[in-house]
């Protein structure tokens, strides 16, 4: 970026693009970069151009993606920024709160603390993948019926952790639910309602 002038002023977008080159960084399935109108963002993302990149293949909610990622990108960044799946949240970005929880090959995983390059060949499930054919899962419906989401920011993570629990244990007791969700904080402290929703799902047949 030789064209940069004092205090960032006087630099137009065109200068910037010419300075960096509008090279596409991602081939294949990443929708954001496929069209000509998004080449500018692609250029933005690669502006620094120094971070090592790796090409990975991952399946997200049943769809396979081939994508080139910066080695420093987390799984959460790929999901939210590249695939525009913004359901999983960043609450702490350091493995404390669980708002970013997704399933990796069925296991609840903090996507903020998981590098994207580690995900080559893995199957990811996010909150956006729960609803099938316009039908909510029983767990999602129970979250609605029991008002388990207050501000809703931790909800996608709670749902994914609870989905994984119910897959391996169709009839957990209260303590088992609490243990399975211990990595998912809720500052609204709506813990009672979340546990009630999971237990109600288990009572109505066990399928998450």
């Amino acid at each position, binding site marked *: 970026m030789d064209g940069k002038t004092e205090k960032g002023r006087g630099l137009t977008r065109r200068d910037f693009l010419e300075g960096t080159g509008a090279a596409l960084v991602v081939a294949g399935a990443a929708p954001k970069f496929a069209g000509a109108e998004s080449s500018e963002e692609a250029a933005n993302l690669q502006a620094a151009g120094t971070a090592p990149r790796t090409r990975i293949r991952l399946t997200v909610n049943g769809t396979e993606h081939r994508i080139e990622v910066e080695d420093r990108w987390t799984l959460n960044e790929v999901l939210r920024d590249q695939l525009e799946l913004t359901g999983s949240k960043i609450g702490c970005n350091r493995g404390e709160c669980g708002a970013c929880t997704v399933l990796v090959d069925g296991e609840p995983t903090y996507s903020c603390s998981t590098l994207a390059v580690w995900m080559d060949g893995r199957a990811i499930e996010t909150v956006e993948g729960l609803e099938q054919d316009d039908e909510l899962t029983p767990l999602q419906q129970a979250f609605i019926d029991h008002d388990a989401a207050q501000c809703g*920011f931790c909800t996608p993570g709670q749902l994914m952790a609870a989905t994984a629990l119910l897959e391996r244990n169709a009839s957990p007791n209260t303590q088992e639910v609490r243990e399975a969700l*211990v990595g998912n904080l809720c500052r609204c402290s709506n813990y009672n309602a979340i546990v009630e929703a999971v237990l109600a799902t288990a009572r109505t047949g066990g399928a998450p």
Partner: protein
Amino acid sequence: MTAQEAQGSIGPLNTVGHNVPRIDAYERVTGKATYTRDVRVPGMLYARVLRSPHPHARIRSIDVSRAESLAGVRAVVTHETHQYIYSSGSIAGGRQYSDAAKDITEHIRYMFDNPVRYVGQPVAAVAAVDRHVAEEALALIDIDWEELPFVIDLEEALEAGAPKIWPEGNLGLDFRNEARPMTRSVGDIAAGFRAADRVFEDRYTTAFVQDAQMEPRSALAEWHGDKVTIHTPTQGISNCRHDNARDLGLEDHQVQIVCKYMGGGFGDKNGSYYFDLIAAALAKEADAPVLLELTRKDDWLGTHGRWHTVQDFKVGVQQDGTVTAIQQTGYSGMGPYLRRSGGISGIEAYACPNSERVIYPVHTNRMVSGNFRAPSDPQGYFSIQSMMDDIAYEIGMDPVDFAKKNMLRPTEDVRFTNYMLEDCIDRGVELFDWQSRRRVEPGSDAGRIKRGAGFSFMMFRSGVGPSSAIVRVDSQEQYTLFVGVTDIGPGAKTTMALIAAEELGVPLSEVEVVWGDTDRCPYSVGESGSRTTTQTGYAVVQAAKDLKAQIAESGMPRRGEVLIASATPTPSTQGARRMCFGAHFVEVEANVQSGHVRITKYVAVHESGRILNPLPARDQIRGAALQGVGQALHEDLLYDPRNGHPLNAGYYGARHLTHLDAPEIEVEFIETDDGFGPYGAKTVGEAGIILGPAAVANAIYNAIGVRMKDLPITRQRILEALS
């Protein structure tokens, strides 16, 4: 009105009073709810903030040239380029800035200040093509620091010779730049102590509690000519717009605030904050939309939490249990800037005719304190109700009887719109089975695991006041409600729709709500002070009444027509106090070998007028009660006194409650209709957090027989107290 009459006279209405799922519940469980960071704008840049590594230091020079020349950096702003003063404040009360105060105050809150006065204070900000480049650039900003003496401890800050954070000293200045405490004086305190048979004195302390909402603060700013759109997690879009406009030197109509979903509020996000301004400044400099993302550590140290306090009490009591005098001297740790009042409440819940309260807001080089859910209350109620619990046992009274003898009741001079405190206490005694759970002799259980029970009671303002709403109906019989609310968690959007459907006499599904956007919505008071339901909800009632009258007069709109009604009512209770009431009863099990405390039963009885939507109302109380438990047993922000650095910022370090720490909270509402608010609804949101610390602490005393006077009541403190 007695409870029986009230309960007899109240039942569900057509729509109000039934359990109704939130109208945006689907969005919340599918990941479709759009929070600030989920908004994407073409060409958007990412911003990061550089923060002070020193508790008190002057910037001799700042060199951003290396950061600016990093490929991908688009703008850098510092105190040399931008001197915005943030949050001139527009909500009522306290000592917060107003337009006048902004001109008067000696303690100006700059977006970037020099000198810096706490670790984590913003120093500079960078916008770049992605967040990693922005972060890299922060490390390339070179600052020549002159470190200054600092003070972390609240009491040390008041000693002669303590490092001065402001030239005037370390006491907070009031509206006239005078270092006077907040005082409240009733009756004759000296006469009160003369009338007492016994006088008790004690000191209580409470710790800093971060608001710690799950969504870290963010701001996405985009300029369109001389108008700026800011997406930001705010508790009040109207006030946020007004504050940001004044801080940026713009008119209100030049600022659009958008907040559709917000990941928790809990306080003090009803105006602007510096990050809104930083995003706006960077977006202007870079000539591109800028998303500023605070990291969790940024948010923890760079925003605010409940002020920590030291409180000294002197209470005079007669042998029959009548309290004759209450004297309270409090010190509130505000950090270096007086963002909010530093108030400590609680003694006004007693009828004692002679009382005196003196509160000093004190500056330290800790992070800033501000509002957290019932800003003045849990720390005050913990202290005074621990004190009173202690006195009750000292004079051999049941704490419930002692409370009922001394609590504030209606008199000719003190009028309430209705009074339900005694009903709440009596119902709690029954539900909790107080007589059998309480140990008449505290600490009398044999063995290492001891049980005990404690209780606390409160009243909390549930005022009435102005707000606005617009209701429209078109020829398709589609009703649209325009309300300037955001939804921070309690479900304001759904509540407003429920009220409109009730008043209009139409199904909830026929009411569409437009919310969270100042370009589309009228003024709303904001989701703070638990006022949205009572104030904006009442405006919805009035607007809907108007629309119904129009329909009655001219019929439903014909093809292409619309009917519109708006209302900005300013109701008044004619001098009567409108309060909500509550009593919490807690049983704990304390392990005197490990210091571990487990809550085995928690009953919360509340009167919040008519409950409009029972499930979310219940969960406001349950969640708030659990936040109170966190304050009682866990949360703190520790500093290393040698270097002024915080030690445990973050959820893990502050030991926030997890699923495994959260006991079941049993909630019961006593419903009434006092004739004010929408259908008699009172406040709910803040009321539930006030009583947890006091009730838990009193239960611990009843279990172990030793009074715990400092929050949080950690295992270590219990073991020290018992040794």
